[in-house]
C-alpha cells in the first residue's frame, strides 16, 4: 500500500491513571481498508487505547490524527459522527428497545446526514439487520436475545452509523468456537462489502491471526512489535510476553 493511504495515526499516545501507565508513548498507523489486529495479554492497554482514541477517556499526552484532523480532544459523540466508532468489550445494548430500534438509533445519529430522516434511517437499519443475519430477531427486545445475537446487534448498530474506521473490542469474548468462526466470516464479509477499516482488539492470538492483515502487539502499555501475523507469531518478545521468559528461550534454542 502507498504511504498516503494512512487513515488513522496514533502518535506517542499516553494515558496514565495516577502512577499507572496504562498506555505509554504508543505510536502506530492504520492503513485504509486493512484489518489491524491489536493484541496483547490482559492488562496490556488494548481497551484503554480504544477508550482514548474514541474519546471515552481523555488522553494524558500524544495525538490521534484521523483523516488529517487531530481528534484527541473531541468528545465521543463528535468522534463517532466523524466516522470512527467502536463496539464494547462488554456489550452495551439499549435495554428496553427492540433490536431494530437499537440499530435505528445508530443510523439516526451516524455519519450519513440523509439518515436524520426517520424513514431513510429505518430503511437503512433494516438493511443492516439483514446484512448481519438478525432479521428473525428484529422485533425482539434486546433483553430477550442471546449473547451471540447481542454481539451481532451491536455490530449492526455501529455499521448503521456508516463508519470508516471501526474498533472491535473483543467481539469474540464469550463465544464458543463455532460462533467465533461464524463471527470471523461475518466481519471479513462486511469489511469487503463496506470497504471498512477495522482495528480488531483481541487477547486470543488464534482468533486474531486468521483475520488480520497486520498486527500490533502491546505489553504493559507499550508497543513491543508490529508486523504481519507470521512475523509477530515468531517474535521472541511476543512469545515472552504471552508465555514468559523461559519458554521464549526454549523456542529460540529449538529454532
Amino acid at each position, binding site marked *: 500500500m502507498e504511504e498516503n493511504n494512512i487513515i488513522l495515526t496514533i502518535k506517542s499516545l499516553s494515558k496514565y491513571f495516577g502512577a499507572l501507565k496504562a498506555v505509554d508513548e504508543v505510536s502506530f498507523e492504520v492503513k485504509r481498508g486493512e484489518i489491524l489486529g491489536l493484541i496483547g495479554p490482559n492488562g496490556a492497554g488494548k481497551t484503554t487505547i480504544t477508550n482514548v482514541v474514541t*474519546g*471515552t477517556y481523555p488522553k494524558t499526552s500524544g495525538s490521534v490524527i484521523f483523516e488529517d484532523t487531530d481528534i484527541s480532544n473531541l468528545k465521543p459523540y463528535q468522534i*463517532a*459522527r466523524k466516522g470512527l466508532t467502536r463496539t*464494547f468489550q462488554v456489550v452495551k445494548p*439499549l435495554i428496553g428497545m427492540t433490536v431494530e430500534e437499537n440499530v435505528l*438509533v445508530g443510523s*439516526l445519529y451516524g455519519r450519513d446526514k440523509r439518515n436524520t430522516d426517520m424513514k431513510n434511517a429505518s430503511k437503512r437499519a433494516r438493511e443492516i439487520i439483514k446484512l448481519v443475519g438478525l432479521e428473525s430477531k428484529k422485533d425482539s427486545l434486546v433483553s430477550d436475545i442471546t449473547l451471540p445475537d447481542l454481539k451481532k446487534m451491536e455490530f449492526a448498530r455501529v455499521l448503521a452509523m456508516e463508519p470508516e474506521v471501526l474498533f472491535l473490542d473483543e467481539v469474540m469474548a464469550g463465544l464458543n468456537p463455532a460462533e467465533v468462526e461464524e463471527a470471523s466470516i461475518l466481519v471479513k464479509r462486511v469489511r469487503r462489502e463496506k470497504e471498512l477499516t477495522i482495528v480488531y482488539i483481541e487477547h486470543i492470538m488464534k482468533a486474531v491471526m486468521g483475520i488480520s492483515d497486520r498486527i500490533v502487539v502491546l505489553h504493559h502499555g507499550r508497543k513491543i512489535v508490529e508486523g504481519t501475523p507470521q512475523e509477530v507469531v515468531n517474535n521472541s518478545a511476543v512469545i515472552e510476553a504471552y508465555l514468559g521468559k523461559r519458554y521464549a528461550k526454549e523456542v529460540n534454542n529449538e529454532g
Partner: protein
Amino acid sequence: MFNNKKVNIFLIIVGIIIFIFLPRFVSGYWVRVITTIFMYAVISQGINLMSGYMGYLPFGNAMFFGVGAYITAIGMGKGLSFLAVLPLAALTAILVSILFGLPVLRLRGHYFAIATIGMSGALLSVVQNATEITGGAMGTTLPIIDKSPEVTYNYFYLAMLALMVITTLTIYLIIKSKFGFGIRSIKANEEAANSMGINTTYHKVIAWAISALFTSIAGALYAYWMSFIGPEEVFDVMIAVNTIVIMLIGGAGSILGPIIGAFVISLLSEVVWSTFLEYHLAVLGITIIIIVFFVPKGITGAIADFVKKRELRLRKKVSV
C-alpha cells in the same frame, strides 16, 4: 395495526370532546377537582419526559411550577395581561432550567435528584426573602377575573384541559422523533449513547427545558386561577413527589401514563378522603404501596403485559 391506530385516534378525540362538555353535567366542586387532575397530569408529563423516557428523576421540578406562578403574579401585578405575561413566565423557567441544567445534568441517578431538590429550595428561599418584588413569605395576590365564579372556573377548566392535551401531544411527537430516540438511549445506556454519536449533554438540557416549559405554564395558570399564591405552596417539593407517584402508578415511560395516573390517584384520594377523613393520608399511602407492589410497571404497563400474554396464547393455539 393501521386500523388500531385509527381507532385510538378516534377514541382520544371522543375523550377530549366528552371532557370539553363535562362541566355542564357535574357540580362546580367536580369541575375544580378535574381541573386539578389536568394540572397534575401536565406536571407529571414533564417528569415523565425526564424520568420515564430519559432516566433522570427531577425531584425539584416543582420549582418551575413556582417560577411560572410567581412570574405571572409579578407581571400581572405590574399591569400586564395574562397572555402577555405567559411567554415571560415560560421563558424564565426555560432559562432557569438551562442555567441549572448545564452543571447539574452532569450528575447521574440519585445525585441529580438530590441536586434538583437543593435548587428548588434555593429558589424558594430567594422568593421568600425578596419581599419587595415577590411579597415575601406572606404570598401575593393576582387580579381577579370580573366574571361569575362558575364562568371563571369553566374557563380555567378548559385552559388546563387544552394545556394537558398540547403537552401530551408535544411529548408524544418528541418521543417518536429522532430526539426521542436520543433521550431513550440515554436512559438505556448513557455511555453507549455517547459513543453512538448522541450529544448527551445537549439532549438532557433540551429535555429539561421542555419539561420546565410545560410545568411553568401549569404554574402560571394555577396562579391566575387561585388569584393568591404563597411561596411554600407553589415551590412545595410535594408537588413533584405527588406527580412522581402519579407517573409511577400510571406507567413511567408511557404517554398516557401520567393522565391515567392523575385520575386514579386523585379520584382514589377523593374516595379515601370522604370515607376516612382522619386517616386519609395513611390509607392512601398504603393503597399506593399495594399498587406499586402488584403493578410495578404501572397501569399502562400492566395492560401492555396483559395484551402481550394474550397474543402469545392465541399464537400458540394457532400453531397447535
